[in-house]
């Protein structure tokens, strides 16, 4: 049986009926495609078990919000099929690159929220005077050198 099949379309009632193999398209993919179309069509989803209980098929009823002819109903069904593929690919990419996407977002948020500002240091160094020089950086080279010379 076909993986995706346009079962029927009825121009008089403005409807198309599609059936999809549930082992090929997951429910999440179906939801994504249906959600993308609900501004233009009425969507009703159903599920049918196969005879003998082996697997199932999703049934999609699409009805145009505006009066559609045979061609536009067929186009709507085609758009739905394309959206299914797009959603399936999107989910695959997210699954493959999920860790990388998470890492980039984490770094971006940390960078935006955690940047050190001058006022963050102000309280810690409150008791230090600007003339204090605990590391001796401000001592001229000559003084250091002359001391060393005297000692030697």
């Amino acid at each position, binding site marked *: 049986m076909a993986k995706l099949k346009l079962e029927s379309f009825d121009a008089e009632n403005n409807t198309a009926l599609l059936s999809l193999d549930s082992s090929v398209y997951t*429910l999440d993919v179906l*939801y994504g495609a*249906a*959600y993308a179309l*609900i501004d233009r069509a*009425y*969507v*009703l*989803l*159903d*599920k049918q078990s196969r005879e003998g209980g082996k697997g199932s098929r999703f049934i999609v009823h699409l*009805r145009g*919000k505006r009066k559609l002819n045979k061609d536009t109903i067929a186009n709507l069904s085609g758009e739905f099929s394309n959206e299914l593929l797009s959603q399936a690919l999107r989910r695959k990419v997210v699954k493959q690159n999920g860790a990388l996407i998470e890492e980039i977002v984490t770094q971006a948020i940390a960078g935006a929220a955690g940047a050190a500002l001058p006022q963050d240091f102000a309280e810690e160094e409150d008791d230090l005077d600007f003339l204090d020089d605990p590391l001796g950086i401000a001592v001229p080279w000559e003084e250091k050198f002359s001391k060393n010379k005297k000692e030697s």
Partner: protein
Amino acid sequence: MSAEIKLRLHRSMYMAQAIKDAIGIFEDFARFEMKRQDDHYNVDIHDIDPEVDGDLAGEFCNFALAHTIERKRKTPK
């Protein structure tokens, strides 16, 4: 008087709470009865307000579906 509409919404695809939300939104325009039967929720729509312009059953289905999807997205897997 408008005809009764019967909808069958599969339980694995529509959340009960989303259907109840939809009933809450549309109950000013019709009378709704929701029953659980086997794998489906059966929703009967009666007494649709004749002033209603548009496809009430279609809008109801879209609302229930959209709310199901949004609720499932919010629920951690």
